[in-house]
């Protein structure tokens, strides 16, 4: 297993290198002189020259790339053009908010999507199945911002039950301990603050979880149905196993393996896809940070956030592969040989 993990990690290196090349070149796609474009029409020659130096635009391309790589190794993602603060620190500061949202959404999606997919497969082609298929198709077709708006309108504006933006109410700004607002509230013994933070989580979590639950439900239903056509299911039935055992022991277990991959990859995508949700709910995570950076044309931040998203995506994909190998004896066997 250790050898397999190392080999997979080594295989990621060339991909990582190319990812860095792509991200490095992002600023070079800006039409014209990036320094002039970024500073806007009112910039003086001195300002432009200073920015060119800061972005190292005067150096040859190869040197620029090398110093970019060197900086990365030291954890240096550059400096925000807007605030002058190190990009790496700004991102770390916002990471807990994004993780809090995505992990909660992941849990909700599994609790909702998995049973729906399974029951839909058991009752394939019944009214229940058709209803689940239609609702889950709605879920994957829904623009995240539309669902967000509808929830804000209904639960925030019309009913007034839930806060529609931000992570906490202004008067509940606790001292951050872990950076996770609910946990911090509990640690500080401030139940009211924890509850307030939890309420703020509900709507954005629902939006993120809806898409993932729909994807998962659809996937589990389809794999279950495909598995039911396998030879070993016929064997299990021929042995005289009760249908319940055939379904839950043979079909479900074998369908859950590929579901792990889908959930993992969608979760990784969600960390980046949270840009829309975080923007609509003014959630102070990396997604919202990236959105603000786009409006300000703050290139080092866009590059840094893109890199962090890509890294998280690659690491989660790797983790998913390894979990898959742990769970599936067939893959383990292939690795050993």
């Amino acid at each position, binding site marked *: 297993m250790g050898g397999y993990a190392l080999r997979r990690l080594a295989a990621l290196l060339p*991909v990582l290198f190319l990812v860095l090349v792509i991200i490095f070149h992002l600023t070079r796609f*800006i039409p014209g002189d990036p320094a002039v474009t970024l500073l806007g029409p009112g910039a003086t020659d001195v300002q432009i020259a200073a920015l060119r130096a800061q972005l190292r635009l005067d150096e040859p391309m190869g040197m620029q790339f090398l110093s970019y790589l060197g900086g990365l190794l030291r954890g240096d993602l550059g400096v925000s053009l807007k605030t002058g603060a190190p990009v790496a620190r700004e991102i770390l500061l916002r990471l807990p908010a994004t993780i809090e949202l995505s992990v909660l959404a992941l849990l909700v999606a599994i609790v909702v999507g998995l049973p729906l997919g399974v029951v839909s497969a058991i009752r394939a082609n019944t009214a229940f199945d058709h209803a689940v298929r239609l609702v889950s198709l709605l879920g994957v077709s829904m623009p995240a*911002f*539309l669902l967000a708006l509808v929830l804000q309108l209904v639960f925030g504006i019309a009913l007034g039950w839930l806060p529609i933006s931000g992570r906490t109410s202004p008067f509940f700004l606790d001292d951050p301990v872990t950076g996770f607002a609910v946990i911090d509230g509990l640690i500080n013994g401030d139940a009211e603050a924890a509850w307030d933070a939890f309420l703020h989580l509900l709507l954005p979590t629902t939006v993120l979880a809806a898409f993932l639950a729909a994807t998962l439900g659809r996937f589990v239903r389809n794999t279950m149905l495909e598995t039911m056509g396998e030879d070993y299911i016929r064997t299990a039935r021929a042995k005289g196993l009760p249908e319940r055992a055939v379904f839950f022991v043979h079909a479900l277990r074998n369908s859950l393996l590929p579901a792990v991959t889908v959930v993992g990859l969608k979760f*990784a995508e969600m960390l980046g896809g949270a840009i829309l949700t975080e923007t609509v709910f003014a959630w102070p995570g990396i997604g919202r940070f990236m959105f603000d950076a*786009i409006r300000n044309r703050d290139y080092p931040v866009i590059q840094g956030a*893109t890199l962090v998203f*890509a890294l998280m995506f690659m690491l989660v994909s790797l983790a998913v592969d390894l979990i898959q190998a742990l769970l599936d004896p067939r893959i383990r066997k292939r690795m050993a040989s």
Partner: protein
Amino acid sequence: MSGFWARNRLALMGAGLLGAILLAVLAGPFFTTSPIAIDIANKLAPPSAAHWLGTDFFGRDVLARVLHGGRATLAIGIGVVALAFVLGVAFGTVAGFAGGATDMVMMRLVDAMLAFPGLVLAIALAAAFGPSLENAMLAVAITLAPQFARVARSQALAISVKPYMEAAMAIGVGTPRLLLRYVLRNGIGPLLVQASLALGGAILQTASLGFLGLGAQPPAAEWGADVAGNLAYLRDAPWVALAPGIAILLVVLSFNLIGDALADWFNPRRRAA
């Protein structure tokens, strides 16, 4: 295919929905006012007989904007997928046909592009190219292309070892002709199915870029941008932001209903169940 519609009521719904949307979007604009005609005295009016979906902050007819925006959105979706198709298929076919080190290097680049969450790469590229509809389309197409490249490559790999390829090379068919007439023509089926599946996603992504301000620029009517532009009036005139948002949902849903059934149809194992 006749059994297809009978067995797939959901696909039938999707086709009906898409047909209705196409009709509305193609014929509708002839019956509405201009989508950019300003009437400030009548701003943020609720839905009425004169304005079925109400008016926006500038008194523009929301229905007219949705219908005109629909033309743009459908054209955008098809344009993006076509562009991604051409880019990805050309890349993948050449890689699979060339094989060896060329294939290795080209496919690592594809892997690297797939190492980004789709929307993030599209956003980063669109931000770099500068905010405009054309740039947003290019950005989404570049993000979609690797998926086509992968399928095209595996098709090309499988086809290049066929006896008819050997025969064609033996009689001296040139490489461009080999690629187009032999490899591409024999491998195009799965690629076309994939293109139809990609349409809904392409529309959703381009609308998302529009929503983030990286797509169509005002005063052009585009659904994603129209949702974002009217968020401020959500409390008093929710229809202005909701109408284009629901339009996106309906179009993407109709494509997904059809694509879903097609995927089922082409998968005999699932059809048997």
